[in-house]
């Protein structure tokens, strides 16, 4: 029981980290960035390439996360900015992000090939720690720790810093923000940087955790991420956090007690029920936007 809860928290922390970035962009732009999962994949591959180039992991991880952030800025420049201000920018942005996702996936396929790539043995010290009756590897604890720290940093950044206030202002109303002197394009680009950096971090951690990276690895979190942000309330960062952990726990207990075939069925049934009870998700508010 304790071990399963730990397994759930572990996978949930990765879902939450992935979904927090996902929901951030939605909160700011009202657009689903469907290339988020592709950034997740690319970051995992970048970290792998850096480790293969004999960089230590503590250096490869932040570098890959920064690279993912930069990919986010490129993504915003190419897929979203040219469309901004057009009447149909919500739908066309969705489509162009889907196109970018395909491009990113194709790049990963070209460079790293279709097979499953793995971090070399011993990338992370193989140590197991006993917590009560449960056991966790050092890697798992570090992954949960890293995700929680990153999500805390994001929350503080949004609440306390000038950049955070600008991003929240743009989320509220781009026009009002512009009148108040906020550089809207820059704030949006920064939101993309943060979002993609978090998505990338989730990718690297996922790659390390399950040590199995392929160009389609993003698909395993893509739909989960979407479920998490809907469950948490579209655009709500704390909602994505709570929903991420909840989904991880639900999945693990479903697999252990009902079988793996029921995993997605139960997850989406819960999503469905929550939406009936709270149409705007757990933390979403009607007609209000948050970043």
């Amino acid at each position, binding site marked *: 029981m304790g*071990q*399963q809860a730990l*397994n*759930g928290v*572990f*996978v949930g922390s990765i879902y939450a980290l992935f979904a927090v970035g996902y929901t951030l962009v939605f909160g700011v732009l009202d657009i689903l960035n469907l290339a988020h999962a592709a950034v997740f994949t690319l970051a995992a591959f970048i970290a792998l390439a850096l480790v293969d180039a004999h960089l230590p992991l503590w250096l490869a991880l932040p570098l890959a996360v920064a690279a993912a952030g930069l990919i986010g800025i490129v993504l915003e420049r190419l897929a979203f900015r040219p469309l901004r201000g057009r009447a149909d920018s919500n739908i066309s942005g969705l489509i162009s992000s889907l196109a970018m996702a395909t491009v990113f996936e194709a790049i990963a396929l070209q460079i790293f090939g*279709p*097979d*499953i790539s*793995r971090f070399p*043995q011993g990338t992370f010290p*193989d140590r*197991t720690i006993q917590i009560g009756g449960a*056991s966790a*590897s050092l890697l798992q604890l570090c992954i949960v720790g890293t995700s929680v720290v990153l999500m805390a940093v994001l929350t503080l950044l949004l609440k306390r810093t000038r950049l955070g206030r600008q991003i929240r202002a743009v989320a509220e109303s781009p026009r009002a923000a512009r009148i108040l002197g906020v550089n809207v394009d820059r704030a949006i680009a920064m939101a993309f940087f943060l979002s993609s950096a978090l998505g990338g971090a989730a990718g690297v951690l*996922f790659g390390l*955790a*399950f*040590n*199995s990276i392929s160009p*389609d*690895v993003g*698909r*395993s979190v893509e739909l989960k991420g979407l479920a998490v942000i809907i469950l948490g309330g579209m655009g709500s960062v704390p909602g994505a956090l709570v929903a991420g952990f909840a989904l991880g726990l639900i*999945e*693990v*207990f479903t*697999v*252990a*007690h009902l*079988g*793996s*075939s029921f995993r997605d069925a139960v997850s989406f049934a819960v999503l469905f029920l929550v939406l009936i009870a709270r149409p705007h998700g757990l933390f979403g508010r009607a007609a209000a936007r948050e970043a």
Partner: protein
Amino acid sequence: MSLARRWPLPFALLLTAVACKDQGAQAPEPGSGGAVIGAALSLTGPAASYGAQQRAGIQAALDEVNQGGGVKLSVLIEDDASTKEQGITVFQKFINRDKVSAIIGPTLSNTASAADPLAQQAKVPVLGISNTAATGITDIGNYIWRDSLTEAQVIPGAFKKAKEKLQFKTAGVLYGNDDVFTKAGYDVMQKALADEGVKVVGTQTFAKPDRDYNAQLTALIAAKPDVLVVSALADNAASIVAQARQRGWTGPVLGGNGFNSPAFIKNAGAAAESVMVGTSWNSLSQDPANQKFLAAMKKAGVNPDQFSAQAYTGVIILAEAIRQSGGKTGREDIEAGLGKLKDLETPLGKFSFTPGRDAQHEPSVQQVKDGKFQIVQ
């Protein structure tokens, strides 16, 4: 629509490019003589590690057959991407466009169950070289053959031997339930365990794209079985064994045919140690046919395994079938030739087909020791 309106020329070019993409595929050289064989292999996707080995085996055998004088063969290799859909597309291409004499493959039983009926309908002989699902392959029809032993032929013997060595009484079972092969493997394992009087204390499932098996393994390990029994493809198998060791599992692991790949050992690393699995190829066999195969693989710089041995054998069998039918290379000739084949010397041992067109030869058991599969005597 607006894309087409705004950029009519580039759009048209793009469409043309997409439409023409497939035209560049290699076609058989007309007048080269000899038989053209199509090989549908999983060069990408979850089964890619098998596909690469199979390609190496086919190429080695092809060199040998063509240098030997007599029968001449050429093989078109296409990627079935480890999926049913792509497998069907490749089969259609082989049957209708390339007009091949026979088809080798596809790699996965799952793909074979969907693609083989097309060949059966078109009366094109198919020789499976790695389809091990006990049912649903050769019973598709009389044009479907295979040189791979089924799980039902390998696993009971392997489990019997493993039980003699390890003396286990209870087992926890984990299997992939979204794949014909891993599911069929599970069915056979379950029966083999029951026949050996082993009690199954827990059964868990997973799907091919899964990467996290912690929930299943935690539940299984909590039931305290003597042995962990796993039916999975090599990529899943490596992750499962690695995660089981991380979860503190120190007991033995018995695998199905999916474990029979150097890729499994490479990816699982130290976790693979002492994993036991039944195999249809005895790497230590001193038969001349096996020594010849080992030499050819060494020359090609490929680490030989069961999959390359079976692929190699597949080409040798087709060449023999053509020889049996007097050198004629029509589809019906090869079909007739396959029917006459008996006690052929191959790397797998003396090879014959059963009346049901399945493979017939002696299986073995192997165990990972010092990072290598070693035959258990």
